[in-house]
C-alpha cells in the first residue's frame, strides 16, 4: 500500500516538476528583461529546443527501451525542411512545420521499420548508420550548401514576426508546452503503459496477444516527429543550417541530456537540457578562473563528469530531487 502511494506521489511530483519548469520558462524573460541579459533568452531557447528533442528521444529510449543512436538525423531533417523550403521561396513557418512533421514521420516509418528488425547493439548501430547516411547525404547536396550549409531567414508565422524580441521565445515555449502535454497524455495512456511493458518484457506482451512492433514503431515515429519539430524551430532560431546539426555527436548529446535529467521521466530531459547547457556555458568560465590557459579545453573536465554521472548518478537530476524531497518529507 505504501508502495502504491509512493508511486502516485512520485508521479505527481514528476508532473509538478514539469509544470514548474514550464512556468519557469514562461517567466524567465521577465527576469532577463529586468536584469538586461538578452543573451540568456537565447540560451533558454536552446535549452527548450534541445530539451524538446530529448523529450522526443526519451519516448523511445526511456519508455520504449530502444536505444536509438541516430535521432540527431530527425533533428537535422527538421532543420533542413526550413532550409529547403526557403530555397524554393516558401517562408511560411506553418508550412515549414507541416513539411517537417510529414517528412520526419515518413522517415521515421522507413528507418524505424528497417531498424526494428534488429535489437540490442545492432539496433544502436543501425540507427547510427542511418543517421550517418543522412549526414553524408546532406553533405553531398551542393544545392543546399553541401558541407558549408546555408543561411536562412527566420520563418514567417502570419502576424507573429519572429524578428521582434521574444516572439520566437514564446513560439518555442508554446511548442514545448504542446509537446509536454502530448507526451504526458501518451505516457499515461494505454499505449504508454504497453510501451513500458514491452520495455520490461517484450515476449510477455507478445504472449498476451499484442504486436510489440506496432507499439514500438508508433513510438519511434512520434519521437521522430517531435525531434523534427525541435529541429525546425532550431533552424529558424539559428538562421543557419548545415550538416553539422545532425553530426553523430549530437545524438550522443541528446542521450547525455536524458541520462543527466532522468531516463524515462517526463521532466527529466528538460531538466537535463538545463544542466547540460549551463555546464556548457559555465564550465569554460570556471576553468578560466582556475587555470586561464586551459579555458578552451573545458571538455577535459566535461568528459570525466559524464563518466561520473553514468557511474554514480542513477536516476539523474530528477531522481536526486525526488530523493531530497522524500528525505525532507520523512524527517
Amino acid at each position, binding site marked *: 500500500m505504501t508502495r502504491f502511494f509512493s508511486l502516485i506521489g512520485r508521479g505527481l511530483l514528476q508532473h509538478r516538476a514539469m509544470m514548474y519548469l514550464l512556468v519557469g520558462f514562461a517567466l524567465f524573460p521577465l527576469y532577463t528583461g529586468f536584469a538586461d541579459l538578452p543573451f540568456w533568452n537565447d540560451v533558454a531557447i536552446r535549452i527548450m529546443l534541445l530539451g524538446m528533442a530529448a523529450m522526443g528521444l526519451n519516448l523511445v*529510449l526511456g519508455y520504449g527501451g530502444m*536505444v536509438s*543512436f541516430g535521432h540527431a538525423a530527425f533533428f537535422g531533417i527538421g532543420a533542413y525542411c526550413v532550409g529547403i523550403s526557403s530555397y524554393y521561396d516558401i517562408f511560411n513557418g506553418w508550412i515549414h512545420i507541416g513539411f517537417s512533421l510529414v517528412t520526419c514521420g515518413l522517415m521515421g516509418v522507413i528507418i524505424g521499420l*528497417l531498424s526494428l*528488425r*534488429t535489437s*540490442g*547493439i*545492432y539496433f*544502436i*548501430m*543501425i540507427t*547510427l*548508420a*542511418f543517421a*550517418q*547516411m543522412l549526414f*553524408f*547525404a546532406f*553533405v*553531398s*547536396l*551542393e544545392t543546399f550548401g*553541401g558541407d558549408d550549409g546555408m543561411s536562412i531567414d527566420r520563418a514567417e508565422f502570419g502576424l507573429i514576426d519572429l524578428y521582434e524580441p521574444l516572439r520566437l521565445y514564446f513560439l518555442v515555449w508554446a511548442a514545448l508546452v504542446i509537446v509536454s502535454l502530448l507526451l504526458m497524455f501518451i505516457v499515461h495512456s494505454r499505449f504508454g503503459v504497453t510501451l513500458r511493458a514491452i520495455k520490461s518484457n517484450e515476449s510477455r506482451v507478445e504472449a498476451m496477444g499484442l504486436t510489440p512492433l506496432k507499439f514500438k514503431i508508433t513510438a519511434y515515429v512520434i519521437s521522430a516527429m517531435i525531434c523534427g519539430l525541435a529541429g525546425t524551430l532550431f533552424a529558424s532560431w539559428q538562421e543557419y543550417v548545415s550538416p553539422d546539426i545532425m553530426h*553523430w*555527436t549530437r545524438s*550522443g548529446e541528446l*542521450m*547525455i541530456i536524458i*541520462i543527466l535529467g532522468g*531516463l524515462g521521466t517526463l521532466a527529466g530531459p528538460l531538466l537535463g537540457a538545463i544542466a547540460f547547457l549551463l555546464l556548457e556555458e559555465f564550465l569554460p568560465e570556471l576553468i578560466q578562473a582556475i587555470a586561464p590557459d*586551459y579555458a578552451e*579545453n*573545458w*571538455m*577535459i573536465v*566535461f*568528459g*570525466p*563528469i*559524464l*563518466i561520473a*554521472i*553514468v*557511474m554514480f548518478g542513477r536516476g539523474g537530476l530528477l531522481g536526486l530531487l525526488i530523493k531530497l524531497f522524500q528525505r525532507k518529507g520523512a524527517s
Partner: protein
Amino acid sequence: MTFTLFLEQAFNGFQAGITLFLIAAGLTLILGIMDFVFLAHGSQVMIGAYAAASLTALTQNFYLGILFAIPISFFAGYALEYLVIRHLYKRDHMEQVLATFGLILFFNEAIRVGFGPAALHSNLPASLSGFVYILPEIPYPEFRLLVILVGFACAIGIHLLVSRTRLGATVRAGASNAAMTAALGVNITRLRRLVFAIGACFAGVAGMMLGPLTSVEPGMGEPLLILSLVVIIIGGIGSVRGAFIAAIIVGMVDTMGRVMLPVILRSFMEQASADGAGPALASMMVYILMAVVLVFKPTGLFPPNR
C-alpha cells in the same frame, strides 16, 4: 579510368581495409565477449599514432618510435580497462555509450592540451619512402605495401591467437557464454583485461601505420571508430573472420567509391557538382551497405555460433 589507376586504388582499398581490420578485430571481441559498447576504441588509435609520432621525433628513428609505441598502446588499454571500463560491464548499453563517449571527449581534449591542436608531422624514413614496382610500370609506395604486409601478418596472428591458442579458446568460450566459462575456472576478469589490452595494442598499431599516411591530430580516431563499428556489424559481432571479410569489403567500397563515383557521376552531371557529390556519396555507400546487410541478416554476415 585507366587500368593502372584502378589497380592502384584496389591496393589502396585493400590497405584501408586491412587497417580497419586491425581496429575492428579488438573491438569485435570487446563487443562480442563483454557485450560492451566501447566507443573510445578510436582514442586507442589516436594514442598509438601520437605515441609513435612523438617518440619518432624524440629518438629520430622511425623504427625505435614504433618499437616503444607498441607497449605504450598495450598499457594504455590495460590501464583504461582497470580504471574505468571494468566498472561499466554490468551497466546497460546506453550507459556504456555515454561513459565511453565521455572518454572520447576526455582523450581528444587531453591530446589537445598535451600536443596542441595542430596535426603532428610524422615523416617516413628515407628507406621507406620509395616506390615498388608491383607490376612492370606500375609504381606503388613502399610504405603502403608495408602496411598491407604488416596488416596481413597481424591478421594471421590474430587468427592463430583466436583459433589455435588456449587463450583464444577461452576468448571464444567467453564470447558464447561468459558465465559458463567463468564457472569452468577461467579468470574472466583477467581475460577481459587482456583482450582489452590486446585490442588496444592492435588499434594502436593501426594508428602508427595511418600516421604517416593521414594526419595525426586530435579526433582522428572517430571516423575510424564509426567505420570499424560498421565493419563489426556487417561481419557479425564477435566474429574475427567476419570482421576481416567485412573490413576488406568496407575498405574497398569506401576507397573505390571515392574514385569511381565522381567518374560515373560526371557522365551525367556537371563536373563541379559531380566532384563535390562523389566523395560524400561514396561515404554514404558504406552505410547503405550496412543497412542492406542488417535488413537481410539482422545479426551480420558471419554471426558467431551460439
